[in-house]
Each structure stands twice: as C-alpha cells, then as structure tokens.
C-alpha cells in the first residue's frame, strides 16, 4: 500500500484500485461490526439509564411499596385500585383537557406568528428570537415568574392591570373556574414559539410561484390560505401537533409550581397525580403504576408520531 506523503490525509487512504473490498462477506461483516461499534455506546447508555430503571419501576409497581419500605408482591392491585378510583379517571380527563386545550391555543397562535414573521423578512428573525425567550426558561422558573405576576395582592402585576380598568384582583390561579385555563395559557406562552419555528420552515418550502399564480387568478387572502398554504404546510402541522401533544401530556412542573393540582383538583392531571402519589403521599408502588400508565400512553403517542412521519425520514436502503 502506498502511504501518501501529504499530511492531513488519512493514513488509510488507498489508491483507487484497492478501494474495492476483497470479498462481499468480509465487507459485510466489517460493516456490521463497525455499525455495532458506532451504535453501541449510545444504545448502552440509553439501556442503562432509561430502560433498566423503567423495568425496575414496573417491577415495583407490582408490589406494595410505601416510604421506601417494600412490603411484598401484590400483583396488579395497584393498577386495579387506580382504575377503580374516580380520581384517576378525572386526572386522565384533565390531562386530555390540558393537552388538547393547549394545542387548540398554541397551534393557531404559532401559525399566526409564523405567517407574521415570514412577512417581516430579516426583522422577522429577530422577532422570532425575542418570542423564543419563554421557551428558553425552565418550567420551574416559568412557574415562579407567573406565580409572582398573578399574585392577587394589590401590588401584583396582574392585579394592578386589572385595577387600571377598575376590576378587583382576580384569583386566577385559585379560582376553580379559571385555574385550568390560566395554566393552559401559561403553558402555551412557554412553548408556542418552538412550534412557530417548525411552521416557518414549512412555510418556507411553499414555492412563491403558487402565490403569484393565485394573485393572478384573483384569489383573496383567505382563499389563498385555504387553498395553498394550509394544504402545503399540513406535514409541518402534523409534526407540530405531535411534538406538542407529547410535551403537553408530560408537563407537570408548571402545575406543581402554580396550583399544586388544585383548586379542588381542577388541575390534577395524570402527571400531577403521579407526583402527588409517588412523591407527596409516598405510595411508591402505586406511583410507579401511574408511571407505567403514562409510559404506555407516551409510547402510543410517539409511535403514532413516527408513523405519521414515516415516509419522510425513511430514505436509506
């Protein structure tokens, strides 16, 4: 083999006639081995840190574990008790309300913002960075900040804004009718910019000629949106819907920080129920059972997500 004299070139570089491997089998075997070696570390890390504890969590969900004391195998009793308790079903319902309520608010908002930002060109990108700031904040920081803003004492920001129009301080976070909507709004505030990014990219893929043709045809703004924009960003919309669904379903920190699941359980989602059962009540066996339930729901959501995008990302042999 000729060693190239020029530095910077890989010492393994071969002249062209030796670039073809000697046999297909060796090549395949080497390729497989290299492939395994490349995937191995990532896989190992994930299995050790994500998957193994999940198995242990499942094992523990079949036992009576309270405050770190394991009292033995009880089979599916945790699950049965959970499914029989009305609080569980209410929690599932509230998770659905929170998730889809947030989606209903976030997606149109993100679309609006995406359209607006695209119209603004270069300034639009600066605006986008500004709008992204909430997403850069930790959920616990978001909860602290909004708790402070919404504090119903006369000196609070929200209370003062209301006072300007002559209204008394509103107990937004502790009023049973307003708690869930408020939490949804705050959750959306934190995340809608992220959705906008994806939609902006999707909008960018629509050829401008289509709009020009539509203008020639005399189509109005709304019609242009319905006939051109909407159908062509459908793939991006799907992505946004899927990612946000998973994100909202698993959101628990802002609820812990803002309302502690109240008032009167109005914001107790399944995630909060897990926190309350496993970390406050310290019924760890039952908490793990809720965790398994959430895991299954998450898995369904992710599989659905990937299937929806399946054709998009599969392009290798």
């Amino acid at each position: 083999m000729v060693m190239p004299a020029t530095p910077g070139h890989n010492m393994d570089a071969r002249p062209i006639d030796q670039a073809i491997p000697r046999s297909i089998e060796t090549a395949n075997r080497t390729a497989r081995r290299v492939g395994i070696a490349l995937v191995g570390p990532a896989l190992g890390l994930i299995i050790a840190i994500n998957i193994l504890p999940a198995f242990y969590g499942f094992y523990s969900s079949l036992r009576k574990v309270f405050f770190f004391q394991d009292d033995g195998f009880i089979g599916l009793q945790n699950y049965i008790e959970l499914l029989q308790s009305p609080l569980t079903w209410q929690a599932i319902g509230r998770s659905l309300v929170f998730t889809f309520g947030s989606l209903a608010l976030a997606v149109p908002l993100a679309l609006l913002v995406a359209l607006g930002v695209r119209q603004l060109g270069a300034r639009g990108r600066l605006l986008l960075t500004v709008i992204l700031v909430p997403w850069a904040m930790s959920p616990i920081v978001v909860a602290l900040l909004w708790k402070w803003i919404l504090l119903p004492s006369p000196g609070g920001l929200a209370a003062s804004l209301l006072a300007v129009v002559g209204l008394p301080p509103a107990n937004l976070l502790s009023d049973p009718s307003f708690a869930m909507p408020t939490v949804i709004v705050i959750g959306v505030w934190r995340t809608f910019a992220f959705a906008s990014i994806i939609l902006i990219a999707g909008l960018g893929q629509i050829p401008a000629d289509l709009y020009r043709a539509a203008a020639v045809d005399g189509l109005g703004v709304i019609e242009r949106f319905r006939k051109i924009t909407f159908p062509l960003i459908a793939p991006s919309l799907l992505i946004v819907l899927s990612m946000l669904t998973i994100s909202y379903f698993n959101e628990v920190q802002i609820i812990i920080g803002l309302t502690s699941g109240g008032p009167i359980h109005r914001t107790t989602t399944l995630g909060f129920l897990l926190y309350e059962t496993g970390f406050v009540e310290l019924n760890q066996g039952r908490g793990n059972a809720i965790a398994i339930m959430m895991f299954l729901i998450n898995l369904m959501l992710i599989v659905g997500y990937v299937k929806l995008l399946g054709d998009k990302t599969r392009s290798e042999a």
Partner: protein
Amino acid sequence: MRPTRRLALIGFSLVAAIVALGPIIWAVSTSLKTSNQIFAVPPQLIPTEATIDHYRRLIAEGVHWNFLNSVIYTFSAVAIAVTLGALAGYALVRFEVPGKRLLLLVFMGAMAVPGFAVLLPTQIMFSNAGLFDTRLTLPILYAAHIVPFAVWMTRAQFASLPRELEQAALIDGYGRWEAVWKVLLPGARPALIGAAAFGFLYAWNDYITATTMVETPQLRTLPVALIFFQGFHGRDWGALMAGVVIATLPPVVMFLLFRRYLIGGFSEGSVKG
C-alpha cells in the same frame, strides 16, 4: 407594502414582543427593587430605589457555584450526547446494523419514559453503582436523555444527504472517516446544532432530576438552588426574581448566538426527508 398592512405587522410584532418579554422584564424590574418596594401599590416598572442587593445575596449564598455546576453538567452532557447520537445516527443510516428496527423501537421507547417517573429506581441504581451525588451523576443522566433525540435528528439529516457525497470523497482519495468529517458532518450541521440546542435547554432547565439525584449543596444546579429562596421563612421575591433573571440569561445568549442554525436545524432535521 401597503401602509395598513405594514401597520398591522408592526402592531403584531409589538404585541408578540410584549407578550413574550413582558414577564421577564417585570422579573428584572422586581429583582432591582428594594424589599419594601416589591409589594408597593401601585407597582412601578422602573424602581424608584434601585438596588443590586438581591443579586448580592444570591452570590453570598453561593449561587455562582450552582451556575458553574449547571454550565459544566450541561456542556458535558450535550457533548457526550451529540457525539454518541451522531455516531449512532450515522451508523443506522449507512451500515447494516443487525436488528435495526428493534433498535429504533428501543430509541423511541427511551423517549417515552417520563424522566421523573423513574427517579426512584434510578436513584437506587446509581447509589449501588457509587454514582449518586457525584460530579458525574447529572452529566450521565442528562446525556442519556438527550441521546435518543440526537440519534433521531441526526439520522434524519444523514438520510437526506446523498450517498454520492461520500462516494465522491472516497474517489477523491479520502479515507472513510475523513470523508465523514469533511463532507458529511458539515451537511449535518443543522441537525447537530438543533440536537445540541435541545439538549442544552433540557439539561440547563431540569429541576426534578437534579434535585433528586444530587444532594450535596456544592454540587447543586441553578434551578435547584433557586428553590431555596422559597424556603422556610416565606418567599423572597426579590431574590427569586434575580435568580430567574440569572437562570434565563445563558439560554437566551445561546439563542442569540446560534439563531441561524437553530431555525435551520429544526426545519431541516424534521421536515426534510
């Protein structure tokens, strides 16, 4: 651009900016007010008596160490995760890895595990391995949570790059790995940066894992340290808001520096096939 349309766009920009930035500006304002001004009625945006006492208090309580911890853990985790993830993503696209579909399922399954749900078993595992409450605990944990996402994003990106690129490089006399470095990775830059940004945000902003897996005050991260200002004596809003401001600065700075890549990264990694 028609004047009404321009006006509408400006109005829209203003509203969006106020909604997004208003709360954090209020946090900055609160953090600079003296304690007896904080509850004053009516509240003022610009404090009449400005003070940096709250920030001083944060530093006195060692918040800068927590800040440093957060920085170290986050960068390590992101570096490890993006490297391992990119290697795996590349392998899944270009090599005949046995059980590819099963592997993809495993990677997806890992993303489905809600982190805080497996905290207790993780704590026991780490403790038995002697890794609980150490400098390595959080980098390893965060990296493990970021890796599936990094694999997924880089895989999509690599898949979209034509094989001809590598083959052209091979013909040019580069070895396989040189081809990867010089040709493939630059093309995958958006996905790499997207994964790095996502990972950075996840690790920087995490609270639940950090508070459970690290107990020594000197090893704590920033979000965990902030909670102490909601302590036994009530809430010190001035200090809390100062903490909010400090905690938000690095991600925002990151966004500003990398916004070109970010916006590109997410779009290409997920939309383009």
